[in-house]
């Protein structure tokens, strides 16, 4: 009974994670400028990765693998925001600006 519950939870986490990752991928393609796209990518890194790793942790049960997975999660939570930050800053320095709404509208029409 417990096993089934855990496996359902794990499945739910994995599916949610994958779904979010998909939406962010779409966002990456559809968003108008660099910063909004990066927003999509950055969030996907932390949230999706978190959900997926948790899903895997539930599947692995309590073992050395779980510990390793948690380490991976910790590592990701440190590095991906930092990477997003560095990227945004580099973009800002390189002269990328947030695009105006009107421009987007005109370019879409």
């Amino acid at each position, binding site marked *: 009974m417990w096993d089934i519950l855990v496996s359902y939870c794990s499945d739910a986490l994995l599916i949610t994670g994958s779904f979010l990752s998909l939406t962010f991928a779409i966002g990456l393609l559809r968003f108008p400028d660099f910063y909004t796209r990066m927003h999509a990518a950055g969030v996907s890194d932390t949230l999706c990765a978190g959900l997926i790793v948790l899903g895997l942790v539930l599947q692995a049960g309590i073992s050395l693998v779980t510990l390793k997975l948690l380490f991976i999660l910790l*590592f990701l939570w*440190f*590095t991906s925001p930092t990477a997003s*930050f*560095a990227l945004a*800053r580099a973009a800002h320095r390189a002269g990328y600006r947030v695009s105006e709404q009107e421009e987007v509208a005109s370019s879409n029409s």
Partner: protein
Amino acid sequence: MINIILLGFLAVVAIAVAMMRDLFAIVMLFGIYSLLTAGIFVSLDAVDVAFTEAAVGAGISTILILSTLALTSREEKQPTHSFLLPLLVVLVTGATLVYGTLDMPAFSDPEAPVHQHVAPHYLNQAEQETGVPNIVTAVLASYRSYDTMGEVTVIFTAGIAVLLLLSAFRHHEDEASNLNDLSHHPVLRYIARLMIPFILLFALYVQFHGDYGPGGGFQAGVIFAAGFILYGLVVGIDKTRQMFSESKLHWLMASGLLLYIGVGIVSLLLGGEFLNYNVFAADPLKGQHWGIFLVELGVGITVTATMISVFLAFSEVRRSE
């Protein structure tokens, strides 16, 4: 199933690389290509190879190509010459290979000749003969350790070649390096400094746990070097150079290779064949253990030192045209 999807991705990425003109994007795609390949390696049970491909293809190669682009140019010109001859050559080559596949054993067929002759010996005997449960490590560092010595020599050769080519173009102390931009970012510096000890620790784990799990001297060396490269990026190339002077790096590069050969010579002096670890101790298993340990250490040292000196050589090239 996973295989089919990954292979499809690979094909798409490869075609994109062929079609695109922006070199920067191509390099990024190449990194993705390597990472996908690593994924396929895992699904094909080659965990050690996947580890290496991820570290090398997606890591080292990509960094090297990127730093080359930074020193050259990122747009590719439209080529003018004809595509017909290359296409013909490629089609003939491909046709020869496809012709060859017609008589190949089916994919993952356990009855294929590859699984009948030499490999079963490794799978059945290697643990008793070498005491190492990771058969890949056992074959790499004992049965075919001579190949691995060649591999270390290749790395050493490449290191020397890069130094020969680039050392004349070192910029001098007074010129400010452009690459250490990151050292002005407090956040990056803080996070990187937090991470570096863990990276080095992980490298040590990979180095010494290679007997039992995926990993070994080469992967550890790459990770170890990556730690120092990160240090170089956030603290500054000049500081890293102070830590690893040229002569110190030369010494390290040479000593790893010499350690490897030395193990062979000692086994020869003790009355065995070259690289026969059995003679190191009364108990052959213990001898194997020592031999594999030392040899992997040699690999790790040379790879670390070479990677660091290659990185430094690339980042110290003068930017002036």
